[in-house]
């Protein structure tokens, strides 16, 4: 008869292992990590109880980078090594970066690499590596808070991010050692967080104005399914621009005062503070760096400075509605996301345009991370019965360069993803044997006005008359919005396929190198961990021996006892040091010299056992040794 297994009460034989998954909002100004615990999605805090991690990294020579508030403290004294708003440079070319970085005290490495590198005390770093440092800090927080290794993460990106920016985000995750379950568009995440899927059906607009990016998405929900109808925005417009506009104005008011990198940074900080104050107040006094000049800033003045920027976002809303084929009065809810939606001018402008009071009940800073956490929980397989499903779209059209520097669109913006499209092209000259495939993203007609994603060559086309060859180029966009391109000459079957690595993105070998570097940085962490392990080992041996002496001290002669106590004290001292090797050797040595004592205790235990008396035969010393032998 088979024996039935009965589990210990409270423990099941096959415990349903809940997988640890998080949602990460990797923001321009602030980043957050959230997870679903006990059925509730919540942002996770650090040891100080802070949920928001400022997206700032400080680099110093030979030290681990500081991330967050600790890094921010260095912003004024050490501006070039304190990197903020790095998201603005993600997936950008060196040339774009120079232009975008104009306002920020970045020191770009002068080189001819397509990818921008920033010079820091810790070496030349790409935006991808800097973002990876922010991700690592968030993952460490999550693992400490959830008590285990993460299965994966959903990382949010602005809906309007192009392929290069998405790829850069995924590369950063790879360098940080994070398994990406999905790249999720921020507005979609926000809609999920609001639980709008609980409604039966309706059309929702999500207005997301973060530190450096703006997104507008129009979604239709039907019984748990979120269908993104259209998305639009500007991946280089955000609250930072409000700060810059105000800083610029303050500089103008300051007359001939000269600002260097440090005081410019300080002025930006002052502007940001003024912006935040002006959400509640109608005017305030600001003291300029140096303290000689004080100026009054009114909300009216601030609104006037921001008006053109806000109008730009409203125009994008209009276009998104048109793309979605939705009339203004069909919009049931308007959701506000991103810290910059706290600005009163933004709230009033959006409310006016949609003729509807926007939702602001969930903290606009946290709402994206919370939505991402809900999605991560589902993707990890923790909620098999969930009705929730997100159907997203391609934010910007994808195309190829044709003759005359024109772009032929292959997949139009707002097409549901995943999607595949093929387009056939032909040769331009008689006997042409190779063809350059140039992949672009954007809405404009000229190559120069679109973002160049990749170039590759299809070679070995048999010489034919112009127009006789048939080259089919296939674009495949996956559920993360990432593109793969393949080209094939149809009459001969000559084929060429690439994973689109943006022209100025990281190559696979660069990622490998950065991964190795991050491992060697991790060597410090490993060193620290093995030190702690050895210290614990030594403590265990010391206290086990002291316990044994207290119990069975009579087994030792006075001399033996004295010698052993000395040896124990030596190891105890050693364990307070920081040499892993010395502690390890000390443990080994003490185990050896106390061996005779262990044998004597063992003999006595056996004798006692043979006498039929119950004793504790647990011997910490020999137990410890057998563990070592196993290891």
């Amino acid at each position, binding site marked *: 008869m088979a024996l039935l297994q009965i589990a210990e009460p409270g423990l099941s034989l096959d415990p349903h292992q809940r997988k640890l998954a998080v949602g990460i909002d990797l923001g321009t100004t602030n980043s957050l990590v959230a997870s679903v615990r006990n059925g509730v999605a919540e942002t996770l805090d650090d040891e100080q109880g802070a949920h928001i991690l400022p997206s700032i990294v400080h680099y110093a020579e030979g030290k681990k980078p500081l991330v967050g508030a600790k890094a921010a403290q260095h912003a004024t004294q050490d501006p070039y090594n304190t990197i903020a708003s790095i998201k603005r440079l993600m997936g950008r070319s060196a040339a774009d970066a120079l232009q975008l970085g104009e306002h920020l005290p970045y020191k770009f490495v002068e080189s001819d690499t397509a990818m921008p590198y920033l010079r820091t005390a810790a070496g030349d770093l790409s935006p991808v590596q800097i973002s990876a440092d922010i991700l690592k800090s968030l993952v460490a927080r999550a693992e400490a808070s959830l008590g285990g290794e993460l299965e994966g993460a959903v990382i949010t990106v602005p809906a309007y991010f192009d392929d290069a920016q998405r790829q850069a985000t995924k590369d950063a995750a790879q360098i940080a050692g994070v398994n990406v379950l999905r790249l999720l568009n921020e507005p979609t995440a926000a809609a999920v967080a609001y639980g709008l899927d609980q409604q039966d059906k309706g059309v929702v607009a999500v207005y997301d104005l973060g530190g450096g990016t703006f997104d507008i998405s129009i979604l239709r929900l039907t019984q748990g399914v979120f269908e993104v109808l259209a998305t639009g925005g500007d991946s280089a417009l955000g609250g930072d621009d409000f700060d810059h506009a105000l800083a610029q104005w303050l500089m103008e008011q300051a007359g001939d005062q000269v600002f260097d990198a440090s005081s410019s940074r300080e002025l930006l900080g002052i502007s940001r503070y003024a912006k935040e104050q002006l959400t509640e107040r109608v005017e305030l006094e600001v003291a300029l760096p140096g303290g000689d000049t004080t100026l009054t800033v009114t909300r009216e003045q601030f609104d006037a400075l921001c008006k053109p920027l806000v109008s730009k976002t409203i125009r994008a809303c209009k276009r998104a509605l048109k793309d979605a084929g939705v009339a203004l009065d069909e919009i049931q809810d308007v959701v506000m996301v991103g810290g910059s939606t706290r600005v009163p001018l933004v709230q009033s402008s959006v409310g006016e345009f949609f003729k509807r009071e926007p939702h602001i009940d969930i903290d606009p800073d946290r709402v994206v991370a919370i939505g991402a956490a809900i999605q991560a929980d589902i*993707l990890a*397989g923790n909620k098999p019965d969930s009705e929730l499903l997100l159907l997203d779209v391609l934010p910007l059209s994808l195309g190829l360069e044709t003759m005359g520097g024109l772009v032929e669109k292959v997949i139009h913006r707002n097409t549901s993803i*995943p999607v595949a499209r093929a387009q056939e092209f032909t040769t331009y000259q008689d006997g042409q044997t190779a063809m350059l495939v140039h992949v672009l993203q954007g809405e404009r007609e000229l190559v120069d006005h679109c973002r160049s994603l990749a170039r590759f060559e299809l070679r070995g086309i048999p010489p034919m008359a112009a127009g006789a060859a048939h080259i089919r180029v296939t674009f495949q966009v996956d559920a993360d919005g990432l593109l793969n391109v393949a080209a094939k000459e149809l009459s001969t079957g000559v084929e060429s396929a690439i994973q689109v690595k943006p022209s100025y993105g990281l190559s696979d070998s660069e990622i490998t190198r950065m991964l190795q570097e991050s491992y060697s940085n991790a060597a410090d962490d490993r060193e620290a961990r093995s030190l702690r392990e050895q210290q614990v080992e030594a403590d265990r041996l010391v206290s086990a021996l002291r316990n044994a002496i207290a119990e069975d001290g009579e087994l030792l002669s006075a001399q033996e006892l004295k010698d052993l106590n000395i040896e124990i004290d030596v190891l105890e001292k050693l364990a307070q040091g920081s040499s892993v090797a010395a502690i390890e050797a000390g443990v080994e040595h003490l185990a050896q010299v106390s061996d005779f004592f262990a044998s004597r205790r063992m003999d006595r235990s056996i004798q006692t056992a043979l006498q039929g008396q119950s004793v504790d035969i647990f011997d910490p010393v020999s137990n410890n040794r057998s563990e070592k032998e196993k290891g």
Partner: protein
Amino acid sequence: MDISKNFFELFELVPGFDLNTQQLSERYRELQREYHPDRHAHKGERDQRLAVQATTHLNEAFETLKQPLKRAQYLLKLRGVETGEEARQQLPGAFLMQQMELREALVEAGEAGDPFAELEELEQQARALETQEYSQFNAALAADDLETAEVAIRKLQFVNKLLHEIEAAEDRLDEEY
């Protein structure tokens, strides 16, 4: 997913130009629930790849049936008539003349006193043409007159392009104002 099924079969719809769009959307969501990669994210790589393939096909099918011009082209394709970029059916001269005039009007609209009103007027003309040609197409298809149906589609391709250009002109004006 059975990708050998035609798009109408996939959505369990009666093939035809007039479509139950409600049913199309409902069935689309139903199939997405079953096949979307997010539903298979915790499974192996092979399942995930299959999910991407299935939803790629599904999105293509949905897009084709949802857009009237693509739907019309697909209906002809099912009957063995490809209506790609290459012209096969000669279009009547009068139609081409009218298209040229409309395009000229589009260029001139930008310089008009009230360009938005001019564009609006043009759009209405184009929409009227569109409606007319769709009913032509529908009738021809019902009568199995594939040649007439193809001519209607050729015309609709012109009209469709014109509508896109009107929209682009409006976007440009929006930026300026």
